[in-house]
C-alpha cells in the first residue's frame, strides 16, 4: 500500500517534469515522400541526401528560432499508390507540419487533393504544370514549369531553324504533361510535330521505335521527355541506328549520372535546366552564384557525387519552408501565407516570386539551355 502510493507520486512528478520540458522547445516534424529507389531514383536519392544534409546543418545551429527540424522521409519508389498511402500516413498519423516532395509529377498530382483537404503545406519537387494550375492553397512546387521549359526548347529550335520534330515521352505524369505542353505550344512557335510515341517507364530498349522514326527522313530533331533510365537508353538506340539527328531532352536530364550511363551517346544533347549545373562558370555578379556554389561544394564534399538539379529542387523546398517558419513561427496558416508572399527568394532553380495566383514563382529566365561536351554539362551557345 505504501509502496504503490510512493510509486504514484513519483510517476506524477516525472510526467509533470516531462510536460514542462516539452513546452520549452518544439520539434517541427517535416515529412518527405521521395523516390529513393525505382525508375526515378536519380531524382529521389539526391533529394533525400540534400534534405538530410540541410536538416543536419540547421539543427547544428540550434534550429529555426530554437525549433529543431525532425525529418520523416518515406521511399515511394516513384509509385503513385505508395505516395498516396504515405501522404495519408504523414498527415493523419505523424501529423507533420509540411511535406516536401514527391519527386515525380504523377505522384504529386495524386496527393494534391489529400494535402489540400488535410491543410498540410506541400512543397513538391515535381515539374508538371497541373500541380499549381489550378492553384491549391497549400500546394507549391519548386521546379521550373514545363511550359517555360518547352518555351525555352522551342526558342532554341527556332534559332537553329528546326521546324519538324518527333516527340518521345514516357507514360508517367511527367512525360504526359511535357508531351501536352509540346503539342499545345508547337503551333504558335511554328514547329510541326510529325510523330509522337509513348513508351513504358520501365522500357529497356527503344530500338524498334527509333527505327520507325528514323525511316521518316523529314524529321529534323527529336525531343525526349522522361526521367527514367530510358533517357539514356534512347540516346544509345538513336546513335547505334546510325541516326545523327539533333536530340533535345527535358529538364529531367539534369543529373550527370544520365550522361555517364549514356557515355559517348550523350555528346551534343541539348536540354534546358536551371543554372546549378554550371555554377562555377557563372559571372560573379550573378545573384544565384553564391547559393549555387555553396550548395555544390557542401553536397559534393559530403556525398562524393556531382550535384543534380533534382537535389536542387529539394534544397529550394527546404529553404523556402525554413524561411516561412523564420518569418511566421510555427503556425501552419501563417507559414503558408508567408510562403505565398515570398518575393526575390534566391534558390537553385532560379529566383522565386510567389503570389496567391503563382505557387511556383519561377519565370522563363530561370531556365537556360545546356549541352553535353566531353562528358560534362556546358552552356549551349547558338
Amino acid at each position: 500500500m505504501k509502496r504503490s502510493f510512493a510509486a504514484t507520486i513519483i510517476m506524477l512528478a516525472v510526467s509533470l517534469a516531462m510536460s514542462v520540458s516539452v513546452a520549452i522547445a518544439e520539434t517541427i516534424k517535416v515529412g518527405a515522400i521521395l523516390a529513393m529507389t525505382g525508375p526515378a531514383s536519380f531524382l529521389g536519392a539526391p533529394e533525400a541526401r540534400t534534405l538530410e544534409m540541410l536538416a543536419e546543418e540547421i539543427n547544428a545551429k540550434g534550429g529555426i528560432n530554437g525549433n529543431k527540424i525532425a525529418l520523416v522521409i518515406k521511399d515511394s519508389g516513384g509509385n503513385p499508390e505508395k505516395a498516396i498511402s504515405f501522404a495519408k500516413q504523414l498527415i493523419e498519423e505523424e501529423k507533420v507540419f509540411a511535406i516536401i516532395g514527391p519527386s515525380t509529377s504523377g505522384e504529386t498530382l495524386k496527393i494534391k487533393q489529400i494535402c489540400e483537404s488535410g491543410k498540410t503545406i506541400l512543397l513538391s519537387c515535381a515539374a508538371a504544370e497541373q500541380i499549381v494550375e489550378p492553384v491549391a492553397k497549400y500546394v507549391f512546387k519548386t521546379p521550373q514549369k514545363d511550359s517555360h521549359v518547352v518555351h525555352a526548347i522551342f526558342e532554341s529550335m527556332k534559332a537553329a531553324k528546326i521546324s519538324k520534330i518527333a516527340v518521345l515521352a514516357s507514360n508517367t505524369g511527367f512525360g504526359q504533361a511535357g508531351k501536352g505542353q509540346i503539342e499545345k505550344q508547337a503551333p504558335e512557335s511554328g514547329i510541326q510535330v510529325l510523330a509522337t510515341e509513348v513508351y513504358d517507364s520501365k522500357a529497356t530498349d527503344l530500338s524498334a521505335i527509333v527505327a520507325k522514326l528514323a525511316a521518316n527522313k523529314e524529321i529534323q530533331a527529336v525531343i525526349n521527355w522522361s526521367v527514367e533510365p530510358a533517357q539514356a537508353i534512347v540516346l544509345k538506340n538513336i546513335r547505334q541506328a546510325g541516326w545523327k539527328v539533333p536530340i533535345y531532352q527535358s529538364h529531367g536530364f539534369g543529373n550527370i549520372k544520365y550522361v555517364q550511363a549514356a557515355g559517348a551517346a550523350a555528346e551534343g544533347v541539348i536540354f534546358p535546366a536551371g543554372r546549378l549545373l554550371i555554377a562555377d562558370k557563372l559571372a560573379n555578379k550573378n545573384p544565384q552564384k553564391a547559393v549555387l556554389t555553396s550548395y555544390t561544394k557542401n553536397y559534393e564534399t559530403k556525398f562524393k557525387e556531382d550535384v543534380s538539379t533534382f537535389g536542387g529542387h529539394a534544397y529550394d523546398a527546404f529553404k523556402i519552408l525554413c524561411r516561412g517558419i523564420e518569418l511566421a513561427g510555427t503556425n501552419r496558416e501563417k507559414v503558408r501565407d508567408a510562403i505565398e508572399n515570398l518575393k526575390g527568394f534566391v534558390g537553385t532553380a532560379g529566383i522565386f516570386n510567389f503570389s496567391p495566383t503563382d505557387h511556383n514563382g519561377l519565370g522563363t529566365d530561370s531556365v537556360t539551355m545546356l549541352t553535353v561536351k566531353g562528358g560534362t554539362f556546358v552552356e549551349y551557345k547558338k
Partner: protein
Amino acid sequence: MTLELFSQYLLAGVTYGIIYAIVGIGFNIIYNTTGIINFAQGEFVMLGGMTAITLTQWLPLPVAIGAAVVVVMLIGALVEILFIRWLDRPSVLRMIIITIGISILIREAALHIWGEGVRSLPYFVGNEITTVPVLGARVSPQVLWVIGVCTLMVLALSLFFKYTLQGKKMQACAANRMAATLCGISTRNMVTLSFMLSAGIGALAGCVMSPITYTQYDAGTGLAIKGFTVAILGGLGSSMAAVAAGLLLGLIESFSVSVVPLAFQDAISITLLLAILFFRPHGLFGSKDAAGLKEF
C-alpha cells in the same frame, strides 16, 4: 516498309527473343528435373550482370564474366540446398510461393549490396555509339554478341543433353523420377545440377545483354514474366520449343511497333500468355497427352 526498317525490326526482335528464350530454357531445365516453376529465374540473370560489373573492377572483362557465371551457379546451388532440398514432396502451389519468396529475397539483397542505380558492363566491342551494318540495318556490335553467345549456349545445351552422361541422367529424371532413382541416379544431385545450369545460362545472358539494357536490382521480375510466357508458349518442358517461342514473342513485340502505339508492347506479351493459357495450355509445340501426364 523498306528493307532497312524491316531489318531493324528483325534484329531487335531476334535480340530480345533470344534473351527471352534463354530465360525460358532456364525455367524448362528446372521444371524438367523437379516439376518446380522457379520464379527466381529472372534474378539469376540480374545477378549475373551485377556480379560481373563488380568484378570488372579487379579482373579483365572476359575473366570477370566467367567468374560471375561461376559465382551465380554457386548461388543457384545454394538456393537449391537451402530452400528446396529438404522439402518432402511439396505441392506445386507451395513451391511457387517459395520461389517467389526467394526472388524477393534476392532482389532486396541486391538492393542493399548494389544500391538503386542502373549500371552496365562496358561494351565488348567499341562504345555506345559504334554501329555496324547488318542486313541493311545498323546495329551495335553488342547485338551480334547477344545473338551469337545465346545461340552457342542453346547449341551447347542440346549437345549436353543428348551426348553426355550427366545430360542423359537429367533427361531420365525428367521422364520418370521413380524409374531414375531405381536405376541408381541420384535425383538430389540432378536437382542441384539443374539449378546450377539454369543459373549459369541466366547469368551469361545477363552479362552479354547488360551494355544494351542496363542492369538494375529489379530487372529480374519483368524478365521472369517474359521467360515464363515463352516457356508456356512453347510447351512447358521442351527447350527447343522455348527457343522458337522466344523468337516468336520477340519478333511479335518488335514488329507490333509498326502498327500499334509503343505503349502497348508489354500488353502484347501478357495477352499472348493469357490466350495460350486459355486456349492451348500445353503450348504451341507441346502435345496434349504428354502434358496430361505431368503434374503441373
